[in-house]
């Protein structure tokens, strides 16, 4: 099978006065595992339903391989959907569910049998063909839904929070299987989720959405390490987010003046001029914590003194809330020591030194 590229241009959709999608534009490449990530109610399902053909936008276009599909009904688009609640046909067996689209096309029964069995094998349900959906577990239902959608040989598979009804452990397992299926058949996946962990772990690229808008499109690394807005920074993983104004710019190196830290050095590929008010971020695991001032000749290293307010132990790591002299609280995550790690344990109320490289801290957003 061959995937399609999907181009969404300036799509807007309202329900009454409520703008569910506001001028959304995204370009999705052939064969990509692309995620739409955002909190509940941000318009992910609405966008997916527009691509599938269940909803018409007020404005904008949706192109599949360069062809405008908005005039086409759902049954005329080479996209198939795995619905949030699976939407398996309760009156049909697993086999008949998967065979549904082939039988609609009036394919010969022998061919149907062969192909359905092939797809049931793909999702490892070959022995469950004669069961009714009500007799299946959540994970099995989900795999039937995937097989039923894939057998139609779509060039785009739309998945609406397909794992949200499963428990945490099964979710991990199904996510890996989904990724394996994607690798095997190579069509475009558009995957809707509100779970940033899910999106980060399988996507080629992610569009982060909030309140009907796309805030950032990028690889998981770009989204995580260089969030485009405050919202993205806070929504994806944990972070430290502060405001300040630009003191000086030197190439990509930006020095920010902030009340809590004095001056801090961060990077940005296209920094605004001096004096601009901005917010900046650094991830907790990018900050090094230690009892002594690190002695290094490295440039562009930020050094901050503070006192441990609260250490939170969680098995494989410890999170520290460190209060700086300026009154800010920074989150710091330290992986647990192996044999090569020397020095005393850091405990509550200890005076510590924090250090992070300007390369790991980013300008996020220009404040008005």
């Amino acid at each position, binding site marked *: 099978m061959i995937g399609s590229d999907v181009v969404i241009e300036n799509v807007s959709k309202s329900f009454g006065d409520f703008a569910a999608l506001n001028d959304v534009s995204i370009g999705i490449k052939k064969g990509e595992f692309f995620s739409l990530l955002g909190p509940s109610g941000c318009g992910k399902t609405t966008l997916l339903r527009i691509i*599938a053909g269940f909803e018409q936008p007020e404005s904008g276009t949706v192109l599949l391989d360069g062809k405008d599909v908005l005039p086409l009904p*759902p*049954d005329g688009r080479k996209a*198939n959907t795995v619905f949030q*609640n699976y939407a398996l*046909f309760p009156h049909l067996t697993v086999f008949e569910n998967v065979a*549904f689209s082939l039988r*609609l096309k009036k394919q010969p029964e022998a061919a149907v049998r062969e192909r359905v069995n092939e797809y049931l094998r793909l999702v490892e349900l070959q022995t469950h063909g004669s069961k*009714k959906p009500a007799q299946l577990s959540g994970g099995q239902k989900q795999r039937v839904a995937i097989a039923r959608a894939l057998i*139609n040989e779509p060039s785009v598979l739309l998945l609406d929070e397909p794992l949200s009804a499963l428990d945490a452990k099964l979710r991990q397992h199904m996510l890996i299987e989904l990724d394996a299926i994607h690798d095997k058949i190579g069509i475009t996946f558009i995957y809707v989720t509100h779970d940033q962990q899910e999106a980060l772990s399988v996507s080629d690229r992610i569009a982060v959405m909030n309140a009907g808008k796309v805030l950032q499109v990028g690889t998981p690394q770009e989204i995580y390490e260089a969030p485009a807005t405050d919202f993205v920074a806070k929504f994806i993983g944990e972070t430290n987010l502060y405001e300040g104004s630009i003191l000086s710019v030197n190439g990509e190196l930006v020095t920010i003046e902030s009340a809590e830290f004095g001056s801090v050095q961060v990077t940005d590929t296209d920094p605004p001029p001096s004096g601009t008010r901005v917010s900046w971020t650094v991830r907790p695991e990018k900050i090094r914590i230690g009892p002594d001032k690190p002695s290094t000749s490295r440039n562009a290293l930020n050094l901050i003194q503070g006192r441990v307010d609260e250490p939170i132990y969680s098995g494989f790591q410890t999170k520290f809330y460190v209060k700086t002299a300026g009154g800010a609280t920074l989150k710091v995550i330290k992986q647990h020591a192996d044999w090569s790690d020397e020095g005393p344990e850091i405990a509550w109320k200890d005076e510590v030194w924090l250090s992070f490289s300007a390369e790991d801290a980013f300008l996020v957003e220009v404040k008005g």
Partner: protein
Amino acid sequence: MKRGPGGLYATPAIVWLTVFFIAPLFIIVLYSFLRPGLRGGVEWSLTFDAYRAIANPTFAKVTLNTIVVALGATLVTLLIALPCGYYMARSKNQTLLLLLVIIPFWTNFLIRIYAWIAILGNEGFLNDMLQALGLTNDSIRFLYNRWAVALVLVYTYLPYAILPLFSTIDKFDFSLLEAARDLGASKFGAIRRVLMPNIKGGVLTAFLFTFIPIFGAYAVPLLVGGTESYMLGNLIADELTKSRNWPLASAISLVITLVTTIGVMLLVRANGANVLGGGKEASEAKAEQSAPLLNASLVALPHSGGGAS
């Protein structure tokens, strides 16, 4: 089904069924094997005369007419009720629409039939209108034929079909229709292949709730029908009140009861679906689900035999 204290709770139902269903049925069976009394009633001597009398062409003709009218009216009722039930299930004003369906019940059944006579009669509203508009000069005879009977029957039993259809369609998961469309079905194909099989039980219930009373209809053909639209219910009533042949009336009732019961059972078996419940249950539920249907149809049956409507 559970045993034990449940039996105690069933007592009122058992008493009710015994007094109002089994006992009358027993009396009807008994009477059908007796000789008619001179002014109605029976004489206590055993005979098969009543059953011999049934085997005559008039009875066959009336039966055929009854089947044709009942099937036709039921089919039309279902065809109207299905889109109504669908629309109500999808509507945001369900309570209002339900109320509208139920409102006709606030008026007595007979008065509603007379209202139809007032509309369709020779001097009726419809004829007045047509003449006032200059479309016709003479009044048209709308009443006293098979079509008038069918029309009023459809009108009368429409709510009985809409309500079970609405309640089943309301439980239907409409995202299944989207899934079918997504997989390549046309709008109509999705309804036929996914909606219909899942609301089969409701359709069957609606069919029984309309067909059984229409099959035993009495007042409607009497008031708006002509000689050619004479139905079994009228035949029974006439045997009771005019010919005063109670055993014959009993025998006809029994034949109707038997035929409808066997028909219902065959229909239920063929569909294998639960009838009074929704459409989403697993297949294991089937066996138990047919029980309430059977009770419901049995309770409804004396209605058809007695020709109450």
